[in-house]
């Protein structure tokens, strides 16, 4: 079962620079475990030691946020497209500056 995974620039050091990689799994958790076998360390950047998704990571299955689809239990099917993005979208300048000002 092939699932296409889009990797953001900051995580491509784990995929040998590849922007798009392929993996397999019935769930997102399964897919990440499969990917980690090929790209060691990638899973650890996305999943916390407690087993949840990293706060500043957003993962989408066919453009829908997995946090509303069961997170790591989100079901996957052959041909699904998975996109990984850092949490920065939406007026990036405004909140980046604000966050820095307030020491967040």
């Amino acid at each position, binding site marked *: 079962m092939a699932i296409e995974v889009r990797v*953001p*620039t*900051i*995580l491509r050091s784990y995929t040998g620079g590849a922007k798009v990689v392929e993996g397999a799994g019935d769930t997102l958790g399964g897919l990440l475990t499969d990917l980690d076998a090929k790209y060691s360390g990638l899973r650890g*950047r996305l999943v916390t030691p407690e087993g949840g998704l*990293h*706060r*500043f*990571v*957003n993962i*989408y299955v066919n*453009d*829908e*946020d997995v*946090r*509303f689809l069961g997170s790591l239990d989100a079901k996957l099917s052959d041909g699904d497209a998975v*996109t990984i*993005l*850092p*949490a*920065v*979208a*939406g*007026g*990036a*300048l*405004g*909140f*980046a*500056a*604000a*966050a*820095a*000002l*307030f020491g*967040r």
Partner: protein
Amino acid sequence: MARYESLLDACGGTPLVGLPRLSPTVPEGAPPVRLWAKLEDRNPTGSIKDRPALFMVRQAEESGRLRPGDTILEPTSGNTGISLAMVAKLRGYRLVCVMPENVSSERVQLLRMYGAEIIFSPAAGGSNQAVATAKEIAAEHPDWVMLFQYGNDANARAHYETTGPELLHDLPTITHFVAGLGTTGTLMGTGRYLREKVDGIQIVAAEPRYGELVYGLRNIDEGYVPELYDASVLNRRFSVGTRDAVLRTRQLVEVEGIFAGFSTGAILHAALAVAHEAVKKGERADVAFVVCDGGWKYLSTGAYGGTLAEAEEALEGQLWA
């Protein structure tokens, strides 16, 4: 529509219009699925941000944080800056905006016209440099007031007290509310209000997915989630790419005559997705979505004409929502 004592009093109360041509066709005998657009471009400065700007300034006045003649500092080149500039002008404050020097000339002209002062940070340093510049300025001027829209309760409250009640009044049969996710204020405020009043309401977020340049962090820990964000208010969250956002923005003006900015296209894309799902399930749906602003400020991108690929390229690396 009526008369108002001043421009500030004319904030909100925007029309909700049906989209009979863009709403999906349902099979004979099936319940109707309808799309409704909340025209936030009809606010005093032409965007939804007039609502939070006014509420944040009022709250700061009431708490004594803002006093006559004070200076407001805001690191923004977007709609919030323009709204704050108008409110600051009418309420007697000075507004200083910090932004990289490579923002579009329309933004600079609009902000200056409304009376804002602009401090530029070098373009080469991008948003990191703007952050550094804003930090320096804040340290030099501890008396300047920053309203911090990403963590300011008055931002979400503006929508809880105005946008939400307006929607429910105009569309008591509402089943879905779809809006953009930036500061998260619109979705948090309107979403909470509608959840309290409408059983089974679906609150749907549409988040712009930009070109790679915008996600130029050095590592994941530099990411940021606005303090206002509470995921439990939402039912679903869609990421919408530039191409889909441009396609829908063009469709909205071509089919329904509504000339909007690209963030509205992203929202419409998510609204259409939930509308088509309702048709498939044979369920009734009244899907209300937000038109954040008009398209005027984005004309210079050239993304309203030419092929979709050209438009996508024109918006690459820009914060189009």
